């Protein structure tokens, strides 16, 4: 029988005896401070993810804001995990903790590469932001009327945007797209910025790096700790497993949301239900998987909410412009104005949110490095 079913009946794993899914507040007081510590960690993780579920709400899942919250949660959990390890550092150099921790650190190093790869994706989003900026300033409705030149300018930027947002696998359709958008006739407008330009400027990862492979490696062999290990480590195996799961989930979300090289979401992610945080985490996981399967987002380059919004607004704007005849009727003008306003809204969100988001990813990176170097230094 799988060991997971017998969590409760082994050794000192009193914690796992009390692992009800939802409510642990009814249980009697734990007898040792270590158990309090470990228990509080489980509860904290659970609380964070329940919170994240709540704030995902109707439309907030995978927005910049929400992912930032997720990263904050990671940082908190990481901090507490670090404290636990520090408090029991006498145990970490003996089996099984030495093996378990070294395994955790190896995975966390893989996560570092994900953080670096994400940087390229964020940079790509910045380029889209600039392109939508062009559209907005070209169609600035405070100055009337919108001239043909402004429309052409906006159109060019929109084409570049559309090409840039193509999933890299759809490279072949690039030429089709540019042919389809020739309605403004001027041959010279064909010099588009995006022809593979951004993709060729992948600074942070080598050409052969693959986000999906990295995630799979991160998830490889991640299983619920064996009862032997839990007992032998005085329960410390459990927070290690917890932290690893959280790490994996966070990296998975980042890869899901932000464009990156060879982005793939097929990862076996499953947490046994008896963990307090299992339900909220799996619920988020399932929601995100569902999102990835939606027809309109199936082939997108990143599930970030803002990406979807830009794509939608710019597509609508593109269609509108295609349909315009000169001179512009008032009706058309107000339509343009409206679309521009929509675009402005998305644009503002990105403009304000992208830099802090990048900093947060960087902070996650540094925190992981820090915890690794601390453990290295403590070995000396």
């Amino acid at each position, binding site marked *: 029988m799988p060991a997971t079913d017998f969590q409760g009946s082994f050794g000192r794993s009193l914690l796992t005896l009390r692992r009800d899914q939802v409510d642990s507040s009814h249980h009697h007081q734990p007898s040792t401070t270590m158990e309090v510590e470990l228990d509080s960690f489980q509860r904290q993780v659970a609380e964070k993810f329940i919170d994240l579920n709540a704030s995902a709400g109707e439309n907030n899942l995978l927005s910049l804001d929400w992912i930032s919250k997720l990263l904050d949660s990671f940082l908190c959990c990481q901090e507490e995990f670090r404290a636990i390890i520090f408090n029991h550092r006498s145990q970490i150099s003996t089996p099984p903790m030495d093996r378990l921790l070294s395994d955790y650190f190896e995975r966390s*190093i*893989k996560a*570092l*590469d994900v953080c*670096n790869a994400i*940087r390229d994706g964020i*940079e790509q989003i910045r*380029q889209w932001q*600039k392109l939508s*900026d*062009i559209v907005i*300033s070209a169609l600035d409705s405070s*100055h*009337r*009327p919108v*001239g*043909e*030149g*402004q429309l*052409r*300018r906006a159109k*060019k930027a929109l084409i570049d945007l559309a090409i840039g947002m193509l999933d890299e696998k759809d490279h072949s359709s690039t030429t089709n797209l540019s042919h389809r958008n020739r309605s403004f006739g*001027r041959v*010279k*407008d064909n*010099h588009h*910025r995006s022809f593979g*330009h951004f993709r*060729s*400027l992948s*600074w*942070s*990862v*080598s050409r052969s*790096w693959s986000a999906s492979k990295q995630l799979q490696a991160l998830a490889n062999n991640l299983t619920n700790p064996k009862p032997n290990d839990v007992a032998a480590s005085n329960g410390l195996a459990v927070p290690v497993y917890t932290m690893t799961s959280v790490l994996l989930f966070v990296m998975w979300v980042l890869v899901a949301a932000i464009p990156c090289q060879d982005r793939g979401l097929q990862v076996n992610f499953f947490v046994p239900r008896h963990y307090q945080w299992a339900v909220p985490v799996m619920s988020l996981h399932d929601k995100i998987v569902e999102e990835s399967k939606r027809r309109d987002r199936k082939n997108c380059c990143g599930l970030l909410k803002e990406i979807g919004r830009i794509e939608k607004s710019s597509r609508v704007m593109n269609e509108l412009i295609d349909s315009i005849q*000169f*001179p512009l009727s008032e009706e058309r003008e107000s339509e343009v104005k409206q679309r521009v306003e929509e675009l402005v809204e998305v644009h503002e969100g990105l403009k304000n949110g992208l830099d802090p988001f990048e*900093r947060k990813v*960087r902070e996650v990176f*540094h925190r992981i*490095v820090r915890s*690794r*170097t601390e453990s*290295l*230094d403590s*070995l*000396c």
Partner: protein
Amino acid sequence: MEKPGDHATESETLPHKSNDLENTNHSHESEHQSHNNDSTEKATPESESESESSQLSLTQVMEAVDDFIQSLSSSTDPLQEIPPAVEPFPETVDSLVSKMESSGLGRDETEDSAFIDAVNRISISVMRLRELNLDSTPVSSWLNRASSVQHHAVSLLDEEFRHLLDRSIENNNKKKNDHDESDNNDEREDAFPDFPPESIATLKKIAGAMISAGYETECCMSYETSRRHAFKEELSGMGYEGIVNNVEDVQRIPWESLQGEIASWISIVRRCSSVLLPGEISLCNAVLPEQDHAKIRKRLLTGFLSTVTIRFLDFSGAVVLTKRSSEKLFKFLDMYETLRELALAVEQSDSDLIHEIKLAQTRLGEAAVTIFGELENSIKTDIGRTPVPSGAVHPLTRYTMNYLKYACEYKDTLDQVFQHYEKAESDQTEPEPENQREDDEEYKTSAFARQMIRVMELLDANLEIKSALYRDPSLRSIFLMNNGRYILQKIKGSTEIRDLMGQAWTRKRSTELRQYHKSYQRETWGKVLQCMNQEGLQVNGKVSKTALKERFKIFNNMFDEIHKTQSTWIVNDEQMQSELRVSIAALVIPAYRSFFGRYKQHIDSGRHTDKYVKYQPEDIESVIDDLFDGNPASMGRKRT
């Protein structure tokens, strides 16, 4: 001369569909233009070449446009129509654009300037007109044509901009192929990026025009894309692509190979700091020199510097995650110093990037502190029970002193590193170190000196313990002398260490050495000298032959024993070896000579003189010369 007003009505009736632009307006154009010439000129017939009339009118038209733009800001009446002089302007510019499309910019400076002037004017007029939010049809139709032409023109500028910027890559590649493959970096023209001044002038003009036209974003995007590409190519040319960047992969590389990667990284980052990045900064300043564009410039530079620099930090970050080991210290410090140069090169960047570089340095510094601490540990754990035979310099002493000597070459960097560390530690309220010495100035000022002294003190303590392993107190002293001398010589031999440790410390060690020397003399030769003492030799005023014989016998035995034993001992330092021998000789020979001279005759008369008087005074010296050679003595050698 007909008034402009008369023509206004005419222009109103003309069709203004965009598609018909090219054909319908030209013929009307020349008609209008010819009427706008100076009154002294006759009206030119339509058969006159169009190019000639458009050339004549370009300057005139531009002047008219200037007046027009002026009037827009000052006039109170809402503009109803476009002045006839200005009317053909869009088409004029358009034909200019077509001309420049085929000839390209950067060939003729005058031509370029004229073109850009025209583009600037059309941009301004479009912008001003749009600000007025006018409704009149003639205006809006002119506006439409003008904005269309403007976009066409600025798009061309954009293309030319990129084309010019990209050309530097081709040039660089060509240069690389032309050069010899003798990879001497010093000889290579270290000009990057390599733009002729005319190109820079053109780039500057184009950038200015694009920004004035409101196409700032396009301009910046083109610049960025092109420069990033160029930079990437340049890095590639230096072999940067070969350096493993993946954090995970770096962990797997064995140290021997990783050292090579680090060396490449260092030379590349150095070149970036000293040549490439300053070059990019200069270029940006040259292309966007205007004070008005300061914000744009800063944004552009900051973005560029961040993107290209952060990648270097990826590698250093990956390296610092590898296991600590003492051999890595100096490479880590090299990287630390390289990052310092990098931080200076990107000073103008934003605080985020500088913060990142400092963080990367901190990680390296922390690792350095740990590794240096390893030295302390290796001293503490060197507790072998086997004493070094012959009392020679212990390998631990050699290792430690050589390590410290090498470390002192990085004195300033290590000082920085330890300062940072001490500050971090004091923030965590650590207890004060026990052996804090207040007397030395250097100790107070240099964090690294404090570390050095700690290590030395640990070494001393360790040597003290090791010396106790010797049962023979004389050998103990020799051992301490050997090691103490080695340490002192190493310190004296290096200005850095000497200055770091300070005079008082050096003097103290010298004093200690002298004390060991004295101990040795006392231990070994005290009794020998004692047996040559005159006391107790005379009984009732006469020299006791028995006592004398006994004395000589004792002397011989002692001396032989010393000879046998201490010949196998080693004194590593040649000078100290000779000093020792000299001091022993100075002690023993006169004493023996006087003893010998005085008392030999009393044994002379008896038989077996040789039994008792083994050594002539001259022999003593040759025996002493055998001492501390590390070779077993050949006994019984006697000088005849």
